[in-house]
């Protein structure tokens, strides 16, 4: 694959230098490498207007995660996504292949291998890093996911790898090109320093201190995200058996000519499982600079436009979810998001069926409602059928 010079350099480092470094440091019996992944087919139906356009397309997605454990101290991994999309969407969306070809990391590890008006085949490396452990210190370099979020829906503390909630089929989430240094003072605490470079050579750099006190995980963080100074905190704990989590981040823009007010993004998250396995989950998101009017249309399916600072354009968003195993092999659920100001909403019903230990059939809908110009208006309705084989 010709994914550019930078890619070649990284691959060279991982594949060539590492074996040299670890030569002769033979471990014991544990297997030194593993290969995992999956193959899935997602059928998409997008109904923008029930009486007119139904757009149908497919994506066949193969993921490969190759992991290498040369010895106790070293670890390297490469995660590759190969995706073939074909159908009407490719014909309808102008420059769809170029959109898929965008890599928002410092290195360009995404490549469209083939395309015409009917299909796009692309490959993307979203994990490619090396980790070195020296007792309580860990050093990690390369494309990785640095996940500081504690909530299950909205993560104001996740300043390195924000993602779109609606992009449900990309479970692993994108990685970022970064350096991460971690120190573990004790069994349940850590200090992390991370620095990320993106495709514009912009820097996100921050420190996090995480610890456990009074049966709560707590964390404080501070740093720089693009043009903002970020200060944040989060927690994960419990109230009467239920899960109770929260995160908030304050973004202070350093470019005073544009914006002098700070943006506060806060989210709390609560869930409870009943004895009959009925699961309920609620979350709220607050943005002090968000609008109380129509929160507008934006490409909410695309991860790259989303940062911890703009998880919603509204003053507030509310989330609710219920899931229930209707039989041991079938889990049904519905998740919903509501904008209380512009009254637009999203509902996502789903059914997940276990066909075999390694084979799952998944049905899902994404139903958006709202007037033109509202946060969730204008997307129409999407239906998905997914068959996933993991290996």
């Amino acid at each position, binding site marked *: 694959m010709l994914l550019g010079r930078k890619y070649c350099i990284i691959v060279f480092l991982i594949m060539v230098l590492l074996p040299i470094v670890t030569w002769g440091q033979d471990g014991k019996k544990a297997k030194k490498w593993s290969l*995992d992944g999956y193959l899935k087919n997602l059928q998409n139906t997008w109904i923008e207007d029930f009486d007119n356009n139904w757009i149908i397309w497919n994506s066949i997605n193969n993921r490969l995660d190759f992991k290498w454990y040369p010895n106790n101290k070293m670890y390297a991994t490469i995660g590759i996504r190969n995706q073939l999309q074909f159908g009407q969407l490719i014909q309808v969306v102008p420059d769809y292949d170029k959109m898929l070809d965008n890599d928002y990391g410092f290195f360009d590890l995404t490549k469209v291998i083939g395309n015409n008006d009917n299909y796009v085949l692309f490959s993307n490396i979203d994990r490619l890093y090396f980790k070195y452990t020296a007792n309580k210190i860990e050093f990690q370099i390369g494309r990785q996911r640095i996940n500081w979020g504690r909530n299950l829906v909205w993560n104001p503390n996740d300043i390195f790898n924000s993602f779109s909630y609606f992009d449900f089929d990309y479970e692993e989430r994108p990685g970022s090109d970064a350096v991460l240094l971690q120190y*573990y003072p004790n069994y*349940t605490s*850590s200090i992390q320093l991370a620095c990320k470079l993106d495709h514009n050579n912009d820097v996100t750099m921050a420190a996090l201190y995480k610890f456990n006190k009074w049966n709560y995980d707590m964390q404080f963080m501070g740093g720089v995200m693009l043009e903002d100074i970020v200060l944040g905190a989060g927690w994960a704990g*419990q109230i009467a058996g239920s899960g109770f989590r929260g995160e908030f981040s304050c973004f202070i823009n350093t470019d005073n000519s544009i914006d002098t007010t700070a943006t506060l993004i806060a989210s709390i998250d609560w869930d*409870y499982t009943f004895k009959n396995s009925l699961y309920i989950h609620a979350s709220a998101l607050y943005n002090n600079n968000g609008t109380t009017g129509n929160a507008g249309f934006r490409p909410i399916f695309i991860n790259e436009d989303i940062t911890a600072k703009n998880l919603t354009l509204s003053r507030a968003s509310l989330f609710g979810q219920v899931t229930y195993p209707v039989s*041991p092999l079938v889990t049904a659920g519905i998740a919903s998001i509501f904008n209380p100001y512009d009254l637009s909403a999203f509902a996502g019903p789903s059914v997940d069926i276990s066909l075999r230990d*390694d084979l799952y059939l998944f049905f899902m809908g994404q139903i958006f409602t709202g007037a033109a110009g509202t946060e969730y208006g204008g997307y129409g309705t999407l239906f998905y059928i997914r068959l996933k084989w*993991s290996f």
Partner: protein
Amino acid sequence: MKQIKTILICVILASPLLQMDAQNLSAKEIIVKADNKMRGTSSESTITMKIVRPTWERTVTFRSWEKDRKYSLTLITAPAKEKGQTFLKRDTEMWNWIPNISRLVKIPPSMLSQGWMGSDYTNDDILKESSIVVDYIHTIIGDETISGNECYKIKLIQKEDAAGVWGNIITWVSKEEFLQLKSTYFDEDGYLVKTETASEIKMMDDRKIPTYMEIIPEDDPGHKTIVIINTIKFNTNIADGFFSQQNMKRVR
């Protein structure tokens, strides 16, 4: 995924599923010996658990490290979808590490009440396991032979102030090796709810133990849960530091 989580939580909370203590001195001695057999001060094991139903079967395998009943670390090795996830328990707190999204989740207690694919281990069961010592009155009620092994038959009756789900339990402990080879569980009205059997006694590490356990619910024909101990090592002197969030991300 949630279901897998639950089963692991259950396993973590009560790794050896087939032990009890007794209060009556002689009954207690027997049970304590049986208990010590199945669990040292620490252990390291690989386990397969199968849920068997008339029309389907599901399997999960995992590696597990345990110490002093306070700490445990579990790594899922199959099915492929959940492989690599780890669970850490320290005293009363639990965490789940999901490597493919680099997420550390603190598990709230209510998640323990979820069932896994209709497994015949009830969570209440497992959570109450450690209090069986204080919650029951134990007596030897006879001698019987279970698959060729002479056994003490011991009855456990729940104390009035106890909150367990079982009214009484009858368990058979082999006289030679002090192995719990069979247990029957009755509800508070005295109806038999499920039967656990243990077989395939093998030399594992430094001792002989049963390596194949079956749990058969009384009212569901064709249903059972099977637990197989593939490997186990006892008293391995694992350091407390092994049970850490750092190690959750490293064990394999």
